[in-house]
Each structure stands twice: as C-alpha cells, then as structure tokens.
C-alpha cells in the first residue's frame, strides 16, 4: 500500500503543477488540430464573437485570413458541415450577430458524436474550472504550440502527385454526381431551418455562401440540389446568399479543397462580396 500512496502523491504533485502552469501561462491558440478542439475554443471562449462562419473543411481556406474588421470565429469542421456548426451555436447559447453558413457540405448532416462529446460528456460541466480537460490543453500539442510558431494557413501549395490527384478527382466527381439520400437530406434541412429560425429570434442575421470546388463539380447534381434548396429558402426568408464567383477557375488539390493560390484569390472575391452586402444592408458586418 505504501507504493500506491507514493503513486498517488506523485500524481497529485504533477497534476497540481500542470494546473498552475495552465493558470499562470494560459495558451492563446489560433490554430486547431481537431474538431473538438476548435469547438471547445468557441464554447469556452471568455469573449463573444459577433461574426461566426460555420462549414466544412472547405471553409478552412479562410483560416488565418483577415476577413472582417472585428473578431470572428471560423467554426469549420472537417468531415462534417454547417449543420454541426449551427447545432453547436444553439447548444452553446452563444448567438453571434452574423452567422455565415457554408452550403457545400450540408449533406454531411450533424456529427452527433462530436455534439455528444462536447455537450453531454460527464466532464462538460468541469471544463471551465479544470482547464486540462479542454483539448487545447492536452499536454503534447500544448507544449508544441508554445514551442513552434503555428502555421495559420490551412491550404496546400500544390496538388498531390498525379497518381493520387487523378483518383481523388474521379472519386469526388462520382460522389458529387449523386444525391445520397434525398429524404434524409430534406429532413435534415427542416431541422436546420427550424434551428435557424430560433437563432434569428435571438437576433442573429443569417447569410449563406458557397466555396468554389473543381470546375467539374461546381454544377454537379448534389451541389445544384443543395444550392437550389438554400437559394429558395434565402429568398423566402430574405436572407443573403453570396453567389460563387463565375468569372474565375479555382484550382483544387482533390476536386474539393482549393490550393493556396486559388484560396487567396477567392478570399479577395469573398471579402468584396461581404463588403457589398455590408454596404447594402449590414453595415456592422464590415
């Protein structure tokens, strides 16, 4: 039993030291490695974000870029999409003044395991008081983030080797030319719009946008279906829908994600569109 006591005493010393370290030297992060880390940053941030972007990994192209003149949070969540982001905002009770919703990967639906992990875990209620329970304070990445300058940009400079690129493009085209489950998507859309109605009642202004993908996918069955759904809804409710740029071709690395050069160009277009919208109706957005 003496050994067990020694184990627990040493453990207590270590954990106290780490808690003190986090308390006196909290980590200010602007690069997140995982979806739960990014979500926790939004949920547990001590400040409010007047502008929030929700979307999939496609919106990762905006990461680290100066889109607005006021604090904004890019809640892009790879492998899922806007539905999860909207659900997080609702569950966190942190309602932004402006919510920009990426339409592209709406079909991915809600990542319920992420929602469960963030809001229904037995540890949820302690995460504010016990900072090491938050993912950003996980020991190894925390130390790495302090030692190295984070890379702010989330895009690749060049496409992968041809053997991989061709396969990825083909699989993207195949995936986007069918509607996976129309019934399920429509049910998901009804759920999303009811949440948006709720957010509107809390004073949030809603805008939709698209991120350009490979030119062979931009008019694909799935994207056109989603675009129509959201455009009609935006029209009906009087929300803004930022149309994709038709005048330029944006190169991607896999048919979906823009390369850095294309992302820079699209960023300028998107910023310009935001300015136009702000100029017309939402001065605060600028």
């Amino acid at each position, binding site marked *: *039993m003496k*050994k*067990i006591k*020694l*184990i*627990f*005493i*040493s*453990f207590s010393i*270590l*954990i106290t030291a*780490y808690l003190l370290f986090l308390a006196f030297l909290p980590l200010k992060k602007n690069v997140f*490695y*995982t979806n*739960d880390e990014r979500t926790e940053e939004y949920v547990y941030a001590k400040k409010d974000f007047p502008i929030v972007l929700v979307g999939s990994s496609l919106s990762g192209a905006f990461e680290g870029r100066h889109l607005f003149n006021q604090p904004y949070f890019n809640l892009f969540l790879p492998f899922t999409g806007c539905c999860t982001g909207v659900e997080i905002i609702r569950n966190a009770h942190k309602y932004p003044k402006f919510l920009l919703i990426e339409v592209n990967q709406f079909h991915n639906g809600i990542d319920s395991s992420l929602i469960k992990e963030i809001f229904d*875990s*037995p540890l949820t209620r302690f995460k504010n008081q016990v900072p*090491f329970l938050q993912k950003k*304070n*996980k*020991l*190894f*990445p925390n130390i*790495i983030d302090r030692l190295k300058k984070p890379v702010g940009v989330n895009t690749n400079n060049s496409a*992968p*080797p041809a*053997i*991989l690129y061709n*396969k*990825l493009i083909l*699989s993207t085209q195949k995936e986007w030319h069918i509607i996976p489950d129309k019934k399920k998507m429509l049910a998901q859309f009804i759920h999303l719009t009811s949440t948006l109605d709720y957010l509107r009642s809390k004073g949030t202004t809603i805008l939709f946008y698209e991120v350009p993908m490979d030119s062979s996918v931009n008019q694909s069955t799935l994207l056109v279906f989603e675009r129509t759904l959201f455009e009609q809804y935006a029209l009906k409710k009087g929300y803004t829908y930022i149309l994709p740029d038709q005048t330029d071709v944006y190169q991607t690395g896999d048919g979906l994600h823009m390369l850095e050069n294309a992302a820079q160009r699209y960023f300028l277009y998107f910023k310009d569109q935001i300015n136009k919208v702000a100029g017309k109706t939402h001065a605060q957005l600028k």
Partner: protein
Amino acid sequence: MLFNSFVFLFFLLITFVIYYLPVGVVQRQQVVILILASFVFYAYQKPVLLLLLLFSILINTIFSYSIFKKGQLRVKAILLLGVIFNLLILAFFKYGPLIASTIGQELSLKNGILDFILTIPLPIGISFYTFEGISLLLDLYTGKIIFSEEKPSFYSHLKRTAFFISFFPHLIAGPILKAREFYPQIDSKRFDRICWVEVVKKLVTGFFLKMVVADNLNTITETIRYPYFQGFSSLNLLLLLFGYSMQIFADFAGYSLIAIGLGLLFGYELPKNFNFPYIASSFSEFWRRWHISLSTWLRDYLYISLGGNRKGEFRTYINLFIVMLLGGLWHGASWSYAVWGSMHGFFLLIERFILKDRLSQQKRSFIGMIYVFSTVSVLWLLFKLTDFSYFLGYFKAIFENNHIQVKFGIDQVSILYYAAPVILYHLTYLLKDKESFSLWFSKVDYLGYAMMLFFILVDSGAQGKFIYFQF
C-alpha cells in the same frame, strides 16, 4: 461497453461494490453476480447478440457435462460433436459472409440467401468465447479440470461454464482462457485479499497504453488509407508503418493488461498475454511473446492434436503452417488475414529449416530483433489494408515515392513521441537482468506509474475502439 468509457467506470463501480458486500447471501452468490454483470456488459451495445452468447454457454455446458457423465465409449463422439458445434457457430457468424462472397455464385445461392448471409452482424468476441468453449471440452476430455466437488450438479456446472465463458474482463478481446487454469480458481473471494499494488500497476499501464499511446497514434495512422497514402513520401510511409506497429501493440497489450487488472480486482488471475514481443529476435520467439494466450491455445489444442513435431520433420512443417494459417484466419474473415498467417507460417518454417536444433539455443541479436520487428511491422499492414492490392500499392509507394518531399510536422513528431513509451517499455526488459538497474527501478517505479496516470488525464487521444474487437 468500452473499458475506456464513463459507462464502464460506473458499471465497474456498481459491480465491485455489490460483489464484495459483506452480506452472507451476496458472498455465496459472487459468481452469479459476475455472470449477470457480464451479461449486462455484453448486451450493452447490441442486446440481441446476448442470445448467441447464451446459446454458446448452454451448448458447451450440455456437451461438457455429457463428457463428464458418460462412459469412455461415447465420450469421443460427444467431444467431436461439441467441437464441431463451436466451429460451426464461428464459421456461420464469422466466415459466412466471406464464404458467401467468395463462392456464393458457384453454390448458386439465391440472391435473398446470399444477401442474408452477407449482412450477418459479427457478434463481438465470438472468436474468443468459441475458443474457450473448445478449451473446456478438450480439457474435460483429457481430464485436466479438477472440480471442487466430486459430482457437480448440472446447475453448478452451468454456473461455472457461464462464468468461465462470459467473465467480462476477457469476454470481448481475451486473454483467451483455458478451462484447466480458470476452473480451479472459481471460489468465493474476499475484499482483503485483493492485491492492490498489482491491480493499480496493471490498470494504469493498460489504460496508459490504450488511451495515451494507441488512441493518439490512431488519429495519425488513420491516414493509412487508399488512395491517400500514395501522396506520401517513402520516409513518411515508413514512419506511418512504424507508428501503426507501435499502436497495435499498445492497443492490444493495453487491453490485455486492463483485463488482467480487472480480473485481479475480482480475485481471478487471467493469463499473461504479452511479454515484450518486439525484443524477439526470431519468429518463434515472437510467437512466444505476442498474444500468448492465442499461441498457447493453438499449440495445446491444434498443433499437438495434429501431431506436433512427433511425426517427422516434413509433417512438423505442414503442422506449423496449418496452425499459422488458421491462426491468421481466426483474426478476421478476410483473405488478407490468411495471407498474414501464411506469411508468419512461412517465416517460422524458414527459421526452423535453417536453424534446426540451434533454434532453442539461439542468443538474442540486435540484427535479429530488427529483422523480426520490421517484418512483423510490414505484415501488420494487412490488418489495416485488408485489400491485398492496396497492401501491395503501399509497398510500391514506399519504393517509388522517394521523389516526394518528406513532411516533418506535428504528426511525424507525434509518432515518435507516442511511440517512445513502447520503446522504453521494451528497453526495461533488456535492462532488467542488470542488478543495479533492477534495484534502482524497483525503488522509483512508482514515479513511472504516477506519470502514466498523469498522462492518462492530460494527454489521452480521442476515444477509440480496441483493434482486436473486430476479431
């Protein structure tokens, strides 16, 4: 139910408290309490699968009780029937889809039947508990099980069998128990007999290996996916392979240690499953150190039954190969597992052919360790890329992608960082023969356990399933 979940923690706490309640009735029914708890544990995810477990328990009880009761003449037939029954259950649920997809068309199966077979869910832990059922029948047949009473009733035998097969720490992913080792342990247990130091050491190490090492490596090795790996440089591919090798050890050894620790918590000693396998300098040594409960099961019940090494050199080679091929198929219903087992069998044969009698006297060599570790690691890839063409594609990429720029970011550093504990763990074995090290280590080992506990709390990865669950 996952060992690394809050539900399990809650379940364990309740079971533990009830099990050791100082009340006469409870103390007399400790085995029943554990059986019921094990059923809850098993049924938690998919309750319907409990029916199959119950069926397996009942069948094995009936056959084993018949072996126990009948005279010498009919015993062999009963044993044979019992073993065939167990294998049929395994074959139907585990290999049905594989067989149907491979030769379904040739068998002219109607589409409806084919679809039905192809969608049969794989009952979790089936490979483990059917092997345990066979162990019970064979141990009873060979008279290796000693009962506490001279003529146990059917009910008491049913209770023991249900407990042996379903005891939750080993139920889903082993260690595979042998009836002759477990039955003599079935008795009432006392709280003050718990060896807490061993329990804490096993649980802390097990959870550390699983939650910190395996789960963190898992988020990185997930990129070993077709066609994505084709975009990685040769060095990055090798590093990923190394990471997966470390992960698979940490995942399975971690699970086994947790199972052993939980067994001790309830007063039962489960067999050791790993003994520093990556220090092995020959394949035969590797199989004495990796998944020991499976390799000894295969040795005791299959290899020896086939004649072992008693029927000449050629038959020994054949027996070895058959055992490894079936051992491979035991892991999963996919031809890649058969290839994996065959390759291990092939390396064992080569080793035996070259070294012959010198095999048992072989000294540990660094080159041997590197050879075994790298070959074993390469073969693990068949667990990750179960399509053989993808497996070959990965190799092709290792040789062809040397022109792609090596990436050395957080993922690559993470592989080295999270693999370090596994390397250190194996190093302690190599150093343990040095008296000064052993003495020093025994004095400060508590610091190691405290650190592991600390890491479990502050550096765990995303909760992942245990790799061996699929087997």
